[in-house]
């Protein structure tokens, strides 16, 4: 039963990575940039929920909605203020460095506002533990909620991208920005929408992450952010199903690595797997094999 138990923990952790990875992969696919500040938006979301509940006394549901709204606004603002002015810049490096700068900015502002000491996160999600096989397998409520949230987000996003007009605009911009503009697609607002969705999802990821691992510091988002980035690359950056599969595989590998090999080197194993995948298939598991047009 321990195998199943580890598997379930892995899928649960992986679901969180998947939700974060969706933000990375959509922004990369549509804006063609790596938003390294994405992980820190998770931390902001978690702090907003914590503060809304403990300081402002809001209900859990209202706090979650507030966090999603604030992170959405934060994401749009970061894009408009920090990235948009650089969009026509000749070097992608400028945008990358700016993203790293924004990441530090968010961490330092959180440090200033909330302090460096670890806060313990409140219980927001109250779902009873599921006990199966006469108590041989227990599944915590948060695990069920996390996996369910991941599935719902994945299905919702896939439907949105494939069935709605703004979704088609996103796909068109990701394929060919100029051709999309010739069709009348507003690239700036499409990129804003992408940041909005990714950042809103980051707030959800913050909630799930801190509910499963309830300590919160200004650096809480950094490592999951990096791992979700790895997951996005692993699945094929730019691909929505790739982010999902990449995230879950990464979570499972990490938990199995911790359980069966060594908890010290689990992270190293995660990165080693990434390197192997990229050596075998440089575009990632679901990456498009880019055909050079003549």
């Amino acid at each position, binding site marked *: 039963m321990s195998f199943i138990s580890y598997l379930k923990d892995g899928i649960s952790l992986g679901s969180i990575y998947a939700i974060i990875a969706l933000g990375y992969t959509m922004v990369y696919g549509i804006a063609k940039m790596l938003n390294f500040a994405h992980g820190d938006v998770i931390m902001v979301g978690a702090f907003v929920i914590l503060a809304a509940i403990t300081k402002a006394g809001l209900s859990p549901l209202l706090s979650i909605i507030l966090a999603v709204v604030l992170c959405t606004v934060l994401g749009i603002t970061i894009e408009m203020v920090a990235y948009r002015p650089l969009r026509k810049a000749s070097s992608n490096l400028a945008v990358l460095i700016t993203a790293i700068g924004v990441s530090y900015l968010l961490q330092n502002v959180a440090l200033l506002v909330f302090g460096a000491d670890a806060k313990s996160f409140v219980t927001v999600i109250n779902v009873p533990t599921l006990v199966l096989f006469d108590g041989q397998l227990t599944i915590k409520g948060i695990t069920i909620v996390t996996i369910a949230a991941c599935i719902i987000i994945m299905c919702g996003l896939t439907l949105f991208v494939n069935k709605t*007009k703004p979704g*088609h*605009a996103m*796909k*068109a911009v990701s*394929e*060919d920005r*100029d*051709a*999309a*503009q*010739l*069709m*009348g*697609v*507003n*690239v700036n607002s499409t990129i804003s929408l992408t940041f909005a969705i990714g950042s809103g999802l980051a707030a959800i990821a913050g909630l799930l992450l801190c509910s499963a691992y309830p300590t919160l510091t200004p650096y809480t988002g950094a490592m999951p952010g990096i791992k979700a980035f790895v997951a996005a690359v692993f699945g094929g950056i730019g691909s929505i199903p790739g982010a999902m599969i990449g995230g879950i595989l990464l979570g499972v590998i990490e938990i199995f690595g911790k359980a069966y090999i060594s908890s010290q080197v689990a992270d190293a194993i995660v990165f080693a797997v990434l390197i192997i995948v990229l050596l075998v298939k440089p575009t990632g598991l679901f990456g*498009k094999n880019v*055909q050079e*047009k*003549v």
Partner: protein
Amino acid sequence: MAMLEIKDLEVFYGVIQAIKGISFKVNEGEVVALIGANGAGKTTILQTITGLLSPKKGNIIFEGQELTKIPAHKIVSLGMAHVPEGRRVFAQFTVYQNLLMGAYTRKDKNEIEASLAAVYKRFPRLEERKNQIAGTLSGGEQQMLAMGRALMSKPRIILMDEPSMGLSPILVNEIFDIIQSVSASGTTVLLVEQNAKKALSIADRAYVLETGKIVQEGKAEALLNDDSIKKAYLGE
């Protein structure tokens, strides 16, 4: 008054000047050809007209409206469609989805079906392949799709950038027949071509472009019989 008028246009790539003060016009109902060798600046001009590039100087006036200050995504709904060089169809979309993207800004939802039927009538091959992924079409089919996609916006003027590029002679004829029929149905055409002979054979008027400047202009017929044009562009 001309439908489209370009005045003293200058376009730069960084410090390199690609368009060095160009003026020309397109009247309603005309087919106007812009011919010139590779690198003359034809694509740069079209991309500047539809806002993908910004000019350093000059005016672009379409039906009395200055376009240089209007962002690229607002141009198509003014009645101007651009079939870009190299087709630029959305490779991951189906033929049908590509055509719908052409109607992206249209508000007359009920009439989009009629436009779709008209495009399928003009390009029966697109209807046969409507559920095929555009990236798997042949070059000629992609060109038809790019033209069909542009027509889906119900343009009053259509700009075409080297529609015959890389196609077999039979397909080139087919594409030029279609351009003529698009023109006959009342759409004004600004045609950019390296295939000068073909372009001049269907155009009313033409401008000859050399390294960012217009060096000759006139009735297409006259240019077809001009000795210097014959030598430089028609291989005679």
